[in-house]
């Protein structure tokens, strides 16, 4: 017995040794495969990280310079001999409001006809006296919209006439492009946007620090402009986006939370609620442009709501955000352990009291986080807004959500298509930076909320 065991053992040991050799032989190959696989995984991660970096570096590199814009600080003399402005018309006895408005508009037209440009030319001549015989050329240093700024200043405060005022005039967009080197300076004359004289002046004034790169408040304070590109700003878009954000917060968040509460806490489990569940999950994955079509067909074409208005945009974005809020709220509610519910029910609270007094407050951080992320997503959305008419040029800050407006992403879309690419590539990137900052702020707030109130059960 023992001897057979012995031989058995010897046989087995020989077999083991052989097997060990076989396995050992395969090891180098297998470990190489392991390293390759692991390397592949790591390169996937690195590719992802690199793309994030590339995206942000590109946008920042292109966009940050646009926050500084060529401006010319000058002293404007509101020469009473050049601008003759009548008294603003007041309400005459027996006149209707409509008639007064008619006269006011006539007055404004007259005002606009005044030679505001001459004020600008005079101010510029102080720096370039030799340009006295080419005023029209000289004026092109300054973007065309600045004359309306002077007009608006006088409309707001007629006492300015006869006074001298220090002002930062925005240089023409082409001047900005030229000075920033965003155009090939060696291009032949006939391909340059600016005449040789203007280029000379611009360089000269820039060297003398008359033209400076100063922080572009116009970018935030002005609305979009097509005639005076250098003064195009985001004010209208910011207001539009803000309105839509408020509407989404006011509509999607409460409705979403309420419906999540019902579905999670009250709804019976049956075929119908299953259907709602499937429906919500699908709705979350429906392409955003479909919501735009819904808006165009229902809100615009059927309810005859105004085109391009933040109210319609807000409604469409709310419907789009709703599933996100519902799903986030449901998972926040799900995370509250049943023991909390049982405790409250056990001391005689009704189901409604249990949920509103105990469960909901505990789930609030999770709900808010989901809601904020949903809202951030909504304000970055473009496609549905284009379909409800928000591709139109709007040069006013909307006073109410029912007025025509643009939105930040739409403004980005409009600007990227502008013909003066050299200028608007940077301007668009700047707008993107603004949009991303808003979104990052919102997300950071959501993360902070989560970190601050996160509970582990």
């Amino acid at each position, binding site marked *: 017995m023992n001897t057979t065991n012995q031989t058995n053992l010897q046989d087995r040991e020989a077999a083991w040794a052989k097997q060990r050799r076989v*396995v050992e032989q395969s090891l180098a190959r297998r*470990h190489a*495969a*392991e390293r390759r*696989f*692991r390397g592949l*995984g*790591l*390169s*996937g*991660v690195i*590719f*992802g*990280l690199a793309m*994030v970096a590339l*995206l942000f570096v590109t946008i920042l590199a292109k966009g940050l310079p646009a926050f500084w814009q060529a401006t010319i600080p000058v002293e404007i003399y509101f020469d009473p001999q050049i601008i003759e402005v009548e008294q603003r018309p007041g309400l005459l006895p027996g006149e*209707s*409001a*409509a*008639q007064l*408005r008619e006269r006011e508009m006539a007055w404004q037209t007259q005002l606009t006809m005044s030679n505001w440009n001459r004020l600008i030319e005079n101010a510029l001549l102080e720096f370039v006296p030799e340009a006295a015989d080419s005023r029209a050329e000289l004026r092109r240093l300054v973007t065309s919209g600045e004359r309306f700024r002077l007009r608006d200043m006088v409309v707001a405060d007629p006492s300015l006439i006869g006074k001298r005022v220090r002002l930062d005039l925005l240089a023409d967009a082409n001047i900005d492009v030229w000075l920033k080197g965003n155009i090939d300076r060696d291009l032949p004359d006939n391909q340059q946007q600016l005449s040789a004289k203007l280029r000379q002046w611009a360089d000269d004034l820039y060297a003398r620090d008359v033209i400076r790169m100063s922080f572009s408040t116009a970018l935030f304070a002005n609305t979009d402009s097509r005639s005076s590109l250098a003064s195009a700003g985001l004010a209208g878009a910011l207001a539009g986006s803000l309105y839509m954000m408020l509407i989404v917060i006011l509509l999607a968040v409460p409705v979403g939370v*309420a*419906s*999540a*509460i*019902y579905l999670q806490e*009250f*709804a019976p489990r049956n075929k119908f609620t299953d259907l709602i569940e*499937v*429906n919500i999950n*699908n*709705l979350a*994955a*429906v*392409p*955003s*442009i*479909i919501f735009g*079509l*819904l808006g*165009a*067909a*229902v809100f615009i074409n*059927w309810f005859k709501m105004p085109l391009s208005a933040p109210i319609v945009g807000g409604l469409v974005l709310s419907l789009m955000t*709703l599933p996100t809020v519902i799903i986030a709220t449901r998972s926040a509610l799900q995370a509250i352990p049943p023991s909390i519910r049982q405790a409250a029910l056990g001391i005689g609270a009704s189901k*409604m009291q249990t949920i509103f007094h105990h469960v909901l407050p505990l789930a609030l951080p999770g709900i808010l986080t989901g809601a904020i*992320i949903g809202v951030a997503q909504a304000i*970055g959305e*473009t*496609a549905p807004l*284009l*379909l409800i008419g928000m*591709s139109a040029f709007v040069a006013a800050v909307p006073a109410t959500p029912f007025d025509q407006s643009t939105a930040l*992403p739409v403004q*980005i*879309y409009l600007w*990227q298509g502008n013909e003066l690419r050299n200028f608007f590539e940077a301007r668009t*990137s700047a707008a*993107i930076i603004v949009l991303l900052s808003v*979104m990052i702020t919102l997300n950071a707030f959501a993360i902070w909320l989560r970190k601050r109130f996160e509970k582990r059960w």
Partner: protein
Amino acid sequence: MNNWLLVCVLLITMGFAYQFGLARSKSVAAGGPGRMHSRPGYYGLLVALWCGVPALAVFMLWSAFEPNIIRASVMEYLPAEVVSADGSQLNVALRRIENIASGFGVSDQPAEYELRAAERMSAVQQTGRLSMYGLMAVLGVAGLVLTLRRITPNLRARNQVESVVKALLVACSAIAVFTTVGIVLSMIGEATKFFSFVSPLDFFFGTVWNPRFSTVGTGDQGQFGLIPLLWGTIMVSIVAMLIAVPVGLMTAIYMAEYAPGWLRSMAKPVIEVLAGIPTIVYGFFALVTVGPFFHGLGQMIGIDIRATSALTAGVVMGIMIIPFVSSLSDDIITQVPKAMRDGSLGLGATKSETIRNVVLPAALPGIVGAFLLAASRAIGETMIVVLAAGNSPVLHANPFEAVSTVTVTIVNQLTGDTDFASPQSLVAFALGLTLFVITLGLNVVALYIVRKYREQYE
């Protein structure tokens, strides 16, 4: 009276009603023999609801119908040629009458009929408003008084308030359903109108996309063939998936199986940033960075690559959906039970052998679901392709050339200056319907697979 003011008054009244209810229930409780059924606050709420909600309903109904009622009331005063005029002219006339009625006036001399119509309009408006106020007041007071009188210890105020709240909750969850129904109905409705111009056969199987400008009256409407657009969509999506699937999957595997904790907690959120960036930003990125890069690359190796092409749009879209694929796959890979991994490692498999031979096959259904969701997202993506695909609805198989997609065409057809009722606009809804059906199909299948997969390991 301003509407906002009215609503404020109503809310304040409700506040008072609440207080009355509260006081009343307390006095009943003090005087009565038994215990009150509910806490005092619920009686207050019940009174406030009865006081405010019917009045509010009247207000909302009136606000909804007021413009139509007023319009109808002045129609008889308008001369026949204005009434029969087309919509915009009639609207101008009505706007003038409204201005006269409101006292704002018009700048020229109003016509006789306009003055009379305006008079009538303000009369209707006034009586309407007054009767609304009256009705609201009556309802409010009646609700208040009747409910106050109903307060007894036996009144189940809490249950009644709660059933109102519950009804509200149900109404809110119905909105999501209505949204889907709205999408389906509006899409089908408008698409049906489109198919009255163009036969569905020509739409679904046409290989030429060439809609003419909308000129009403001419028989020539152009050709609305879906195939080139669908093919463009598929081409861009394939390129996108070719980028996103390998990168996303490898990222997920690395994150789930290899990455040390610090790398995981650092890299995962950073990569997920990609998912939060608005698509317009990707479009711009494609247009100014990726497109020129591919164009230059093509010149270097002697291939003609357009800056805006299926390749550019697809690659950027692929980058966009990397985090989508990776975080879904990551979740799914992490759900594969540890026992499964241990079984393989215990046999002497290396980690990568374990992942390839055991973990991935086990996770396959879930991962396929994730891919389908990603594909559905790629198909429905709009802004990247609008900016970077080149918008050339011609049937070809060269990814280096410009293409057009379903989504791009929807945007193009609805943002032009065409008449909404023309086939040139309506086709957008037929396209939208197609898109909706495709993505819905993908989503349903994908969500079903993922759900089944989750259940398997729960």
